[in-house]
């Protein structure tokens, strides 16, 4: 028998089990996220090198270093091109492909499944594979280009290296946008579409005014996940161009790895990493806010 008086106690008791179930993962999460985070803040105010026994207090030196370092700003500039360019292309292609799959009457699942495969390829393998395909002597795609009369060393040329690494990201991750948007399209109810048909709407009008607005939330989700991930990974650039040629593909993430492990300047790297973290958290907050306003 449940009495009104039992309720608060029951609720507290119910929460107690959950509290103990949640506690271990919260402790581990704190160890793996907060501890490194505070350690990084500490390091950013120290003169800290890998070969040093005791780091010395350095005040704001590291912060001054990065903000007056032109390579730092250039790397951010290239990151904007890399992430912005990559996201725009894969978003356009991904939405286009999702609409295509939505409209074909047969083999939709087969197409979607096969299109997904690049998602499972380890980025390091994807990078090396594309390096092979674009190799000036042995590459399959290089051979195609030569047949078309195009003779360039794609990854060795400062003006083509960036488009090439963007294209690799597009190759691997466009399917993610496709399957997310397709899932959204498949859950759209048929009634508005049928009503539009009765009203004589053209195919394009249906896409533009009914389908796309209904999957806007899905597009924001895809954009959130992809924008975080494109800042996260440095694998492809590491295995293909190492930031080169002539720094053409040196994004902020790759520059951070260089400052930390090649120049071994931990203090500066920590300050740099914190700015990266702030930018990605702000970007994440922005998209989550957009999502919440969509839901409301």
């Amino acid at each position, binding site marked *: 028998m449940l009495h009104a008086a039992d309720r608060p106690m029951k609720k507290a008791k119910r929460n107690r089990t959950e509290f103990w179930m949640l506690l271990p993962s919260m402790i581990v999460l704190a160890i793996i996220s907060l501890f490194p985070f505070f350690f990084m803040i500490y390091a950013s105010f120290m003169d800290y090198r890998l070969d040093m026994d005791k780091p010395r207090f350095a005040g704001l030196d590291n912060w001054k270093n990065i903000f007056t370092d032109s390579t730092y700003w250039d790397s951010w500039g290239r990151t904007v091109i890399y992430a912005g360019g990559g996201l725009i292309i894969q978003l356009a292609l991904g939405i286009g492909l999702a609409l295509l799959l939505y409209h074909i009457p047969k083999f939709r699942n087969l197409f979607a499944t096969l299109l997904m495969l690049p998602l499972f390829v380890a980025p390091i393998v994807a990078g090396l594979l594309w390096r092979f395909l674009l190799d000036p002597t042995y590459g399959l795609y290089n*051979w195609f280009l030569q047949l078309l009369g195009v003779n360039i060393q794609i990854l060795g040329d400062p003006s083509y290296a960036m488009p090439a690494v963007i294209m690799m990201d597009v190759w691997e991750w466009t399917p993610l946008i496709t399957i997310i948007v397709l899932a959204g399209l498949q859950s759209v109810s048929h009634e508005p579409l049928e009503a539009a048909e009765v009203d004589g709407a053209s195919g394009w009008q249906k896409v533009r005014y009914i389908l796309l607005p209904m999957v806007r939330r899905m597009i924001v989700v895809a954009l959130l996940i992809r924008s975080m991930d494109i800042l996260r990974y440095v694998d492809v650039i590491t295995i293909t161009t190492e930031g080169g040629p002539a720094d053409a593909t040196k994004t902020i993430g790759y520059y951070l790895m260089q400052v930390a492990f090649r120049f071994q300047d931990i203090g500066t790297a920590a300050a740099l990493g914190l700015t990266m973290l702030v930018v990605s958290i702000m970007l994440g907050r922005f998209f989550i806010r957009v999502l919440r306003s969509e839901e409301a």
Partner: protein
Amino acid sequence: MSTRRNILYTVLYILGIAALAWSLIPIIYMIMSSLKTQIGMFTMPPQLIFEPTFDVYKDMFSARGNFTGFLSNSIIVSLITTLLCLVLGVTGGFALARGNFKREKDIAFWIISTRMAPIPAVILPLYLIFAKFGMIGTTEGLIFAYTTFNLPFSLWLMMTFFKDIPIDLEEAAMIDGCSKFRAFWQIALPTAAPGIVATAVLCLMFSWNDYAFASVFTGKGTQTVPVAVSLLVSQSGIKWGQAMATGTVVIMPMLICGLLVRKYMVRGLSMGAVK
């Protein structure tokens, strides 16, 4: 009208096949190249019909190839990380879905921003901490490092799976005198089984495919397969035959796992946002 429709469908199928070709040719070409001779794989135009040879694979798995070492490191690290994050993620995810905590929104944001923090910005502080505790080059260190992205991921995803399960059955069991934990263990857990499998596969994939953490935190004897891939690139050139074969070995298990849980893939990769 119907001819117009037929033309439209033809165009759509042609574009679809073009997209398939663009997506799949690199993968197919990699697998084919790994089965060719060291001369055959470089011939242009590419040989489409050839007698497959397993020489590169035999070499890799022979005693002097020491590839099995890399492989077992990868398997051990991926499995342990997955198991660890799954146990914590399933219990914690259930608690988040059913419990009523203060500042739940902040906890959610904390989890998600830990998952999405840029890898280089995570590697750096971990490196310093590991260096202090002598954990560089150890398997434990790498497992710890993988927890930084897999724990928030599994917590979050399991939370969304548990939220989808109606609470009625558990409540009914509890009215019959079942404890909350037993209701979780005997009712919620079996119902969430597909979600747990999907989460496990994705955790496995994220660890298996990682290169950045492994390249910094492993040393001789603890290196994983993605590091082996990068070691094939040197100043004097790239061992393409081995590179294609190693790449094939890296992607095959993930392609198979991915296809097995295909139904839940969208959901997992969108962190539960797409049902």
